[in-house]
């Protein structure tokens, strides 16, 4: 018999669990203190009520119902309202403030079981959450009895056909599954929530350790706890490479660059613009946006390096009126300092902005600014997820990346996304005759022919101008430009034609 899944409604979770939690079974959620276990259990019931019209029972062994109602209000869940509508019922098993408990012989948890059954009947619950089992061990201090009683409760819940989750504390992020070492034997399925400190950054991840008799995605997936939403799991490697491809070209905002790209960017492509500081990346972003607005497209700009005042001033310095575009509803600029929040939350915010504004073009200036707030692994996952998300929307995305050295060089950003992007444009400084000049080349243009020259770029108050090729210079990309004498150049040009004859 095969195991059915119950879609939890927790964003991203149903994807990595291949459809949700095993239906009618019991799942243990384990994690260290502060790993968002309680939020998971509350959200499991909340999404059931909000999305699936499935009522829930919450059994609390630790916090009082009043504390839970209060704490979860900030996540946008009005538990009190659901209680009055008969959709949510608490079973309060939290410690009572009294003269204490004395154990005087054998006992069972029949009292608790009767109350749970009654609550399930009362609201017609399909989902049950228990938080947290550790507290009942400290309350009643008889591990063998509690273990067998929990097992009995788990069996009874299964017989009632409800899908249940329960939490247990762990003492270490990587170690025993649960503190008392017995909780995991009670459940069919185990999920681990982690809150790891890595290179001074907190990183939350979720791992499905086992689903008895059914499949799931393996490994740790990052997640974030977002105000008004709760847990959002980011299903990185589970992303499918299934994007539709469009042959429609769009203008990048600069006629000459359009020609170099063989007629413009593809409408659903990701373009990476790489270059050292000050060599024209923000200008290219500005022209990309202006080019879109001119065609009545909607453009969304995420800026991580400059304030919106600065960006508007820059744009007007190149004869583009961002304010007008904004007033016409064609442009939205979102300026954030990378340090304001963690990378996972940046990702979720950016996705929310894209969902809300529904742009035709998205620009990020610069992507590499986000490198500094994350570990390399975290950043790579971020870039892959964001790129994939934008591609699914079938919109054009232009990202800039700052190279660490002035001439030549690559950045971490490029290493991670160069294979995912459809086009790569390099902006490079070229030192010639004691002067810094700028060069541009289209390194990659997936699905299209393109101009392979390295051409000179000049910038004035009308924007970017692409001039002639640096035909007599070599070694620009390596950062060591060398002049080639005219005579030598002629010889090279005829080298292969001679052989062909």
């Amino acid at each position, binding site marked *: 018999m095969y195991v059915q899944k119950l879609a939890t409604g927790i964003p991203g979770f149903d994807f990595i669990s291949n459809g949700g939690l095993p239906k009618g079974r019991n799942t243990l959620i384990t994690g260290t203190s502060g790993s968002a276990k309680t939020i998971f259990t509350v959200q499991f019931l909340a999404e059931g009520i909000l999305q699936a019209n499935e009522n829930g029972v919450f059994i609390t062994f630790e916090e009082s119902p009043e504390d839970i109602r209060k704490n979860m209000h900030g996540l946008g869940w009005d538990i009190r309202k659901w209680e009055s509508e008969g959709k949510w019922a608490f079973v309060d098993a939290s410690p009572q403030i009294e003269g204490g408990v*004395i154990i005087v012989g054998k006992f069972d948890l029949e*009292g608790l079981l*009767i*109350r749970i059954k009654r609550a399930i009947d009362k609201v017609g619950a399909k989902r049950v959450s228990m938080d947290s089992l550790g507290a009942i061990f400290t309350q*009643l201090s008889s591990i063998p009895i509690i273990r067998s009683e929990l097992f009995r409760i788990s069996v009874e819940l299964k017989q009632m056909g409800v899908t249940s989750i329960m939490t247990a504390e762990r003492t270490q992020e990587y170690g025993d599954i649960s503190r008392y070492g017995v909780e995991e034997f009670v459940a069919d399925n185990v999920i681990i929530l982690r809150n790891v400190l890595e290179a001074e950054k907190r990183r939350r991840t979720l791992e499905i350790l086992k689903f008895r008799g059914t499949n799931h995605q393996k490994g740790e997936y990052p997640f974030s706890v977002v105000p008004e939403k709760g847990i959002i799991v980011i299903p990185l490697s589970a992303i499918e490479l299934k994007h539709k491809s469009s042959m429609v070209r769009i203008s990048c905002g600069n006629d000459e660059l359009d020609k170099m790209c063989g007629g413009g960017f593809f409408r659903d492509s990701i373009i990476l613009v790489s270059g050292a500081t000050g060599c024209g990346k923000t200008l290219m972003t500005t022209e990309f946006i202006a080019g879109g607005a001119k065609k009545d497209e909607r453009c969304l700009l995420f800026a991580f390096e400059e304030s919106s005042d600065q960006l508007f001033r820059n744009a007007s310095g190149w004869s583009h009126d961002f304010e007008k575009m904004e007033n016409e509803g064609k442009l939205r600029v979102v300026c954030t300092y990378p340090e304001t929040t963690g990378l996972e939350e940046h990702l979720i915010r950016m996705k929310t902005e894209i969902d809300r504004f529904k742009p035709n073009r998205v620009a990020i200036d610069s992507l590499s600014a986000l490198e500094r707030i994350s570990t390399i692994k975290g950043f790579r996952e971020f870039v892959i997820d964001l790129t994939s998300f934008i591609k699914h929307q079938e919109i054009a995305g232009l990202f800039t990346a700052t190279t660490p050295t002035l001439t030549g060089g690559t950045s971490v950003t490029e290493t991670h996304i160069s294979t995912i992007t459809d086009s790569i444009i390099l902006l490079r400084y070229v030192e010639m005759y004691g002067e810094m000049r700028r060069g541009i080349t289209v390194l990659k243009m997936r699905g299209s022919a393109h101009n392979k020259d390295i051409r000179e770029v000049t910038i004035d108050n009308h924007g970017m101008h692409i001039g002639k090729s640096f035909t007599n210079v070599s070694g620009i990309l390596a950062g060591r430009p060398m002049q080639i004498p005219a005579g030598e150049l002629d010889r090279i040009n005829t080298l292969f034609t001679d052989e062909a004859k």
Partner: protein
Amino acid sequence: MSKYVLRLYVTGNTERSKLAIVNLRSICENELHGMYSLEVIDILEHPQLAEDEKILATPTLIKELPPPIRRIIGDMSATGKVLLGLDLKSKISEDDNDM
């Protein structure tokens, strides 16, 4: 001696329920000499009372009076500990620990 108010919560007519009732009655007779009231509540019949008192384990004895309110959980077989819970004794002796 002030009067004791005790309530014992059990589930149905099980061996464990019966054992708890018998053990508790004998302790009360021997130690409290009629200065008590004991109410036995079957939560299968009165689930709302279990909810009101937030009963988890059964059997649970609640000592309502004299204060402090205390919960005494189990089949009442560890007599010494029951006495301790009822404030009729201040220390556990060696042979009280057999559960």
